[in-house]
């Protein structure tokens, strides 16, 4: 399976039903807003420091099964937004809904892949992947089976009984991904998941993520600093303004799927990157003052 991932294909393979092929049904699927944020606002009020407005008037819609990336200047509230969506942070104002229901706390239909992995050091790979199932109250034998499957899926078989400190960064994030997928959530939140990895591991993980996404049909919200990564993976890229974060522009990525590494060398791909960059540049200038 891994070999197939790595082969550099220009020709797209046969499509599975339900995969996005820019037909009318797909367009409708993307339009039905599965996640809906309206006028979202959040201000952090740390003790003895000035308050920081992370989000203000953020509107955002995500379709079911869509792969959406968020890019924006550092500190524009991308991670904050993911944490609100995850249910760990409560917004001060506005409204955020998943499938029409207001989000009030964490839920089984959402799972996060954390930038710094967030693996429990005292748990083996297997036990880390089992965490969500354990908290859900799934019996031990079923947990084992499901976790073993996912460990295989992310290519870590043979490492079930290793501790996180014995793994490389890429392997740790595979565990993080397997853990998030274990509870079979509908929405996968990814907060710069590959930022801590080296470039080659990152390329590999991106390909595998696309494969898994294509098969598992999850809605993915992906926060990244890399324009290339956003363009490569997403159906749409949302550029956020400098803090406080609002949607500045939505860029649709009309590139065929499945996507592969070679596609990143095409002129179309570079045009898309340029579009994202030009939008983002204004915000970077607004934030830093450089290049004005």
């Amino acid at each position: 399976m891994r070999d197939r991932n790595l082969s550099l294909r220009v020709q797209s393979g046969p499509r599975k039903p339900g995969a996005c092929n820019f037909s009318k049904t797909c367009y409708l699927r993307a339009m039905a807003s599965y996640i809906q944020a309206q006028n979202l606002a959040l201000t952090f009020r740390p003790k003895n420091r000035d308050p920081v407005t992370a989000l203000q008037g953020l509107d955002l819609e995500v379709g079911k099964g869509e792969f959406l990336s968020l890019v924006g200047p550092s500190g524009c509230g991308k991670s904050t937004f993911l944490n609100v969506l995850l249910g760990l942070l409560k917004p001060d104002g506005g409204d955020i809904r998943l499938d029409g229901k207001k989000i009030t706390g964490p839920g089984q239909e959402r799972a996060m892949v954390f930038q710094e992995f967030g693996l429990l050091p005292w748990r083996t790979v297997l036990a880390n992947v089992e965490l969500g199932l354990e908290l859900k109250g799934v019996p031990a034998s079923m947990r084992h089976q499901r976790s073993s499957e996912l460990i295989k899926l992310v290519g870590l078989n043979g490492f079930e009984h290793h501790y996180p400190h014995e793994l490389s960064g890429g392997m740790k994030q595979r565990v993080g991904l397997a853990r998030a997928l274990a509870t079979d959530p509908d929405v996968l939140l990814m907060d710069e998941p590959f930022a801590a990895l080296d470039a080659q591991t990152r390329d590999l993980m991106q390909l595998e993520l696309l494969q898994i996404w294509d098969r598992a049909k999850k809605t993915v919200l992906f926060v990244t600093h890399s324009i290339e990564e956003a363009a490569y993976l997403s159906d749409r890229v949302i550029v956020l303004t400098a803090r406080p974060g609002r949607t500045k522009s939505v860029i649709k990525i009309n590139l065929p799927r499945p996507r592969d590494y070679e596609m990143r060398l095409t002129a179309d791909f570079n045009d898309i990157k340029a579009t994202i960059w030009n939008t983002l540049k204004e915000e970077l200038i607004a934030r830093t003052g450089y290049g004005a």
Partner: protein
Amino acid sequence: MALKEIYTEYQRPILGLASVAGLLLAWELVLTYLIPVNPFFFTKPSLIATAFREQVLGGRLSHDLIISSRAFLWGFSCAIAVGIPVGVLMGWRRRAEYTLDPFLTALYASPLIALAPLIIVVFGVGLVAKSVLVFLLAVFPFIFNAFAGVRSTDRLLINVVRSFGGKERDLYFKVILPSTLPYLIAGSRIALGRGLVGVIVGEFFAASEGIGFAIARFGDTYQLPEMFAGISVLMIIAVVVTEGMRKLEAVLAPWRVGQEAR
């Protein structure tokens, strides 16, 4: 070559035993040949060993040990049972920290051993008073280390467990306690030393049996080898228990093995 490999493998016990043996030998030789001190005032390892043997064979030693360890175990167990929950609560709940902090700091910093006469007056001579003294001395390292351990818990891991639907209980058992465990083991080493002080001092003040009583009595009657025999027993126990804790750490916290920096 083979010898060198054995040395590398067992460097720790070899160097440890060699330094102890060297010190005992030097002590013996100096007192035998260089400064022949009157054995009434000072003693040497060979005499201590003889006294030790006699005490073991006479059954007196094991009796004293059982008496003292009973008090120690009661006090120490209570210190664990009270210290860990209080420390964890203080680390996790700010209100608990602010409320309890003044008492704990005052009690930890002051020489609690000064309370020994009072405790004996209140609880009488015997098991209860000694256990209370052990408890008072041993509980603070558990409280403070549990507190420090909880405070050092990684915020990210708390968020991870929360994000998967973990409740307060899950946070305690799946994140806070495991990450506090290494601190608790370090704390128990300190508590061990303080607890031993508690037993011995309790028996110094008022007792008719126990290892501390034996040491005090032999000291009062200038039976130095016998007194040193009692002291060495305490030392051996302390070393054995500390080593046991090291092993316990390897069993309880296998994820930390191999993370040493040097």
